[in-house]
């Protein structure tokens, strides 16, 4: 096990252009499950590849277990990586795939089979050892890739969108399995994804990236409840956070906090809005609304009303809505950064 650290890590692919990764400083904790989350092109995969040693940084350093590994090839970093495509060796059987890292690391012959069987057992693929990758399902391939990664007990685990090739149903169970698996082996893990559900569900901490910059590092609760800026606020959560334009300040609140006024207790901001559309999704209703009066008239909002509330709301209806004050977040309009709470005149 080891701590991974990056110091001012930068990658510029084309000189004179904005870097794919810009001066990223990160420090994992021992045994942590850290998730790099960001839209495509945010630099999350490039960052991971630099940690793996597959991409040479333009500047900055990578440290694994306190050792500077920036100039070392991947094989001297004691890491294991699972690729998005799984990158199984197509001409080798599952057994030979899993044993490959052991052979490459010159593990004595008699220790190899027990280790492979241990890894295969851990992932429940003991029956598949003689098969070829092409004869496996997507989920089985993913397990083989994981088994190949853990078989030599690496100090760091790097996972590059390993669930994106699975169908939606399988993905949920694979998520749970990966989390369980991480708890069992306890290796420091870095996980790259563009799927916020995966990030929220699995990460001890989430690193939110955009355009090669770290926007926020925090636990799932922190990045969701206390976003550092409007990018994080709107990237996480579906539908995204509502942002109401208020002069030099943006007031933000999650759709689930926009409720019919009758359901809100305590200090709250009241607004009147016309519901333009209601989507019934079974577990909840999504309300598309437009503020009717006051200084914010005309602004569009999205609300989520859990199905446990039996409130009749029809298209075109004008309804009183409210947002609990403690759920309001404020951002500077100039740079989108979070600013301290302030009282705004809503009417």
């Amino acid at each position, binding site marked *: 096990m080891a701590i991974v650290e990056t110091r001012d890590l930068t990658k510029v692919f084309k000189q004179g252009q904005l870097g794919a990764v810009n001066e990223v400083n990160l420090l994992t904790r021992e045994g942590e499950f850290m998730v790099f989350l960001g839209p495509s092109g945010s630099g999350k995969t490039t960052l991971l590849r630099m940690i*793996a040693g*597959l991409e040479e940084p333009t500047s900055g350093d990578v440290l694994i277990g306190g050792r500077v590994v920036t100039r070392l*090839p991947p094989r001297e970093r004691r890491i294991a990586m699972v690729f998005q495509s799984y990158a199984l060796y197509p001409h080798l059987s599952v057994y030979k795939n899993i044993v490959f890292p052991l*052979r*490459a690391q010159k593990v004595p012959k008699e220790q190899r089979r027990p280790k492979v069987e241990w890894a295969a057992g851990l992932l429940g693929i003991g029956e598949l050892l003689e098969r070829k990758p092409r004869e496996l399902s997507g989920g089985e391939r993913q397990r083989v890739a994981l088994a190949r990664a853990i078989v030599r007990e690496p100090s760091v685990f790097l996972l590059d969108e390993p669930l994106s090739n699975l169908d939606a149903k399988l993905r949920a169970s694979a998520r749970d399995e990966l989390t369980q698996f991480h708890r069992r082996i306890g290796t420091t893990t870095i996980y790259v994804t563009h799927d916020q559900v995966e990030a929220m569900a699995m990460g001890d901490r989430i690193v939110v990236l955009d355009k090669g910059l770290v926007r926020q590092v925090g636990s799932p609760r922190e990045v969701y409840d206390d976003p550092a800026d409007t990018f994080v606020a709107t990237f996480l959560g579906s539908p995204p956070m509502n942002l109401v334009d208020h002069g030099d300040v943006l007031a933000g609140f999650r759709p689930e906090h926009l409720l019919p006024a009758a359901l809100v207790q305590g200090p709250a901001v009241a607004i009147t809005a016309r519901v333009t559309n209601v989507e019934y999704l079974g577990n909840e209703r999504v309300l598309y609304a437009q503020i009717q009066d006051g200084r914010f008239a005309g602004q569009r909002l999205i609300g989520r009303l859990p199905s446990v509330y039996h409130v009749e709301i029809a298209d075109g209806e004008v309804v009183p809505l409210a947002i609990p004050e403690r759920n309001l977040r404020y951002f500077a309009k100039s740079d989108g950064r979070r600013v301290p709470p302030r009282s705004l005149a809503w009417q």
Partner: protein
Amino acid sequence: MFVPAVLYIAGLIGVPLILAFLYSVGDVTVGSVGYHFVGLANFRSVLQNPAFRGALLHSFIFTISAQLIVIVGANVLAMALRHPFRGRGLVRFFCLLPWVAPISLGAIGWKWILDSIYSVINWGLVRLHLVKPFDAPMWLGEPTLAMISVILVHAWRMLPFSTVILLAGLTAIPRDIPEAAAVDGAGFWRTHFEITLPMMRPVIAVALLFGIIFTFTDMTVVYILTRGGPYDTTHVLPSYAFFAGILGGSLAEGAAVSVFLVPILVLVAWAMLRVAHRSEVV
């Protein structure tokens, strides 16, 4: 609909092939008008001819050695040309040149390079004091050296073709695979021999198949450089067939020699296609 195509193929390929078979079991010579069926007499007489047996042996030596050199060389070149670098386009162009340029031109160039009097190689060797003047090797005049020269020039000519095929195979391997091997701890050689080469097997088989057929049936290099000499020591089957059948006038004998190529090539093609097919299925 297909009739024109069928006629065209039959005319271009079928007629000469059938003619070759007919000649090989007849008694045709250049200038003769009649045709008498003589059965396998031509084959029998050809088999007893030491020059033919020599040519058969040389054909195998020529093909196997040239293809060995070509496959190894093409591998190295393909690896070197895989990643972009400054001037890669130019290097690629030069690598392709021997294949694109007319072989007669290239071979005549080599004839001069290997000439007994004007050889630039010998000139260089003399200047480097590696050999004495007037005692330089006769590249095309000594049986072993002549064979080596013919093989090397042919390999030089075939190299670009195999390089292009192997390069295609190499670029078809997803980037993830060698990267996974690197992360798994494999160095260059292990990645190359245990991952890259096995994954390229079908493509290498195709390159070999074409290479063997092109080499086995080719006579240009031998014809221009040595004309089968000295003392028939570099004759291969096609050049021998040409010399016996066309220049020697014994069409039937030449046809018999040519027909000898058929079963060998069919066997090679069958074996190679099997290899290619098997590696695809696995």
